[in-house]
């Protein structure tokens, strides 16, 4: 049992406040990703939970035990660092066994457990090597083995994949996820890579400037972004934003900007008074080439076709501003051509101009 509870967490350096009254509950066995741009406080949050950073105010409990003032080693957590943080002068085996040796675990028991985790992570043949003779991916596996062998109550990952190349990153991502399915240890994973977060998380906690902007499953965050910031941060290619004016005509509501006219179901949104100014967000991946007579078609002139293999991002000039959409049928498209693309009304996001909050009704 290791649920995490953070209550009114505050962090300030000198007089400068980085995190203000942050509250967060993480259930036992959950895989939570802290996601956000650099400097949003996600790593600081993680390090406070680990005990590597003093907590200015508030309490952290792990498994219903208040650990706010406990030494990092006494919290029952294990951490994997971005830099791997291996002990450079020790062999792989000594690195993995270091924590158990400090706990005075019997030698035979240590040897057995080292063999076990080395087997799980495919490190058997490297045990006598020094870290400097390993590749980045192997080093990160050693770091994971060092964390796993302690059978912690909580795993913390601080951008563990950021120093690896793209292919290795994908593979280790899968391994971390598999490891979690096996061990079911509560895990917090920090990243600034939204794709990594989407693929690995049970729940994403999206942070911005020291506060939680939105939390939810990856689908919730992707399909129902609570704010313009979330919508902009999540998804690749990035969402198109357009300032629009609401036009109410009887029962139907349209959002108008220049030649663009998008009809949305009025019942799903709040605050769409006639003449109100809003910001509309359209995901490129939710749009495609328009068929004849499609609702919500947008027309423009192709600027660029970015081939991504099985599909392409098409960048289009619409009333002098760039918009983009993704299509599989891009082979015939050429820059300079006129083009028409459309979006389902259910995929249109509308945000308040003032607060940036989504105007979509909850539920």
């Amino acid at each position, binding site marked *: 049992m290791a649920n995490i509870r953070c209550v009114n967490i505050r962090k300030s350096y000198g007089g400068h406040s980085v995190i203000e009254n942050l509250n967060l509950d993480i259930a036992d066995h959950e895989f939570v990703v802290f996601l956000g741009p650099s400097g949003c406080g996600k790593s600081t949050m993680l390090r406070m939970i*680990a*005990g*590597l950073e003093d907590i200015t105010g508030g309490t952290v409990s792990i498994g219903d035990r208040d650990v706010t003032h406990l*030494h*990092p*080693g*006494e919290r029952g*957590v*294990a*951490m994997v*660092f971005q*830099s*791997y*943080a*291996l*002990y*450079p*002068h*020790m062999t792989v085996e000594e690195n993995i066994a*270091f*924590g158990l040796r*400090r*706990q005075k675990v019997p030698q035979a028991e240590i040897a057995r457990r080292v063999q076990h985790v080395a087997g799980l992570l495919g490190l058997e043949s490297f045990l006598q090597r020094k870290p400097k003779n390993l590749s980045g991916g192997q080093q990160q596996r050693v770091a994971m083995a*060092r964390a796993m062998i*302690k059978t912690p109550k909580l795993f913390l990952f601080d951008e563990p994949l950021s120093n690896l190349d793209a292919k290795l990153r994908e593979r280790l991502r899968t391994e971390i996820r598999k490891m979690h399915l096996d061990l079911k240890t509560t895990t917090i994973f920090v990243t600034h890579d939204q794709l990594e977060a989407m693929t690995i998380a049970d729940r994403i906690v999206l942070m911005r400037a020291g506060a939680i902007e939105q939390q939810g499953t990856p689908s919730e965050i992707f399909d129902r972004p609570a704010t313009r910031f979330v919508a902009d941060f999540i998804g690749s290619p990035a969402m198109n934003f357009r300032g629009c004016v609401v036009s109410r005509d009887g029962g139907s509501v349209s959002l108008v900007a220049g030649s663009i006219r998008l009809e949305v179901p009025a019942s799903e949104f709040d605050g769409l008074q006639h003449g109100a100014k809003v910001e509309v967000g359209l995901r490129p991946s939710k749009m495609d080439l328009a068929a004849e007579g499609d609702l919500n078609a947008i027309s423009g002139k192709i600027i660029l076709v970015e081939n991504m293999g099985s599909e392409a991002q098409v960048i289009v000039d619409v009333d002098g501003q760039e918009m983009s959409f993704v299509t599989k049928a891009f082979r015939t498209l050429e820059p300079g051509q006129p083009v028409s693309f459309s979006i389902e009304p259910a995929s249109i996001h509308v945000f308040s101009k003032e607060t940036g909050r989504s105007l979509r009704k909850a539920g």
Partner: protein
Amino acid sequence: MNNRRFLFWTLTPGFAVLAILALISIAGALYFSVMDRSLRYPDYHFAGLYNYQRLLSDRRFLNALQISATWEIVTVVGSLVVATLLSVLIFETVKSFWIRNLICFAFLAPVLLPRVAAAFIWRFLYSPSLGLINYLVGLTGLGPVEFLADPSLALMSVAIVDIWQWGLFFTVIMLKLLETLPRDPIEAAQLDNARTWEIHAFVTLPMLKAPIISLALVKAVESLRSFDLIYVMTGGGPGTATETLDLYAYQAGINLGGRISYASAMSILLLVLTTIVFTLIWRGIRKWSV
């Protein structure tokens, strides 16, 4: 001019000066060591290995050899132990940047003092009648301690001055080295439930092994040249309790009797001995630090 020629012409003058200075003095010493030159007589003759033979049965020489070895070990180990303990203590307890720099500045002062000045300061501190240290000892009820006149204390008392100069200097270097270490392995060790002393014993100091070995070698070479400190503080006495090889060579060759050939033989033996010992140590370290 091609690269090789350039290297040749830039390196040659320097090497030539060094070689001439070193070789001429060594050759001169070698020459005198097989003569019976003494300042008492104007003439001298070839004496073969007579001087070397006499050295090996000279109890004062063997004593000096032993004192020199003790001096090396005590000052090198002492400086490094003091530096290690103090630097870790400061690293763990003093977090303020300004106070740390202030401490470093204060710790650098002793090594900046000329040896002779340091020696005089400590002679006064150690003085049985005027010295501060004996005043403090007196407060505890113990009588005045003859730090420099007691044969069992003299060498250690002088060694303390050497460690005071170099141990504090090395403290500053090791503190700066600790500060340059990456934080992550230290934090990983904290999470691995290592106590503070374990973090330093098992993580930070092993990570600094190479620079610490360099410091030890520098200090070992430096300790060979403590003539001025010992000469001013005790002059080799009481008796021969602090007489190192260089002091004895000086006493034999220049101060007493002017037995130049005898002193030359001693210098040559010292040269051979230190070369062998340092080569062995160097080899051992290279093997061990891989």
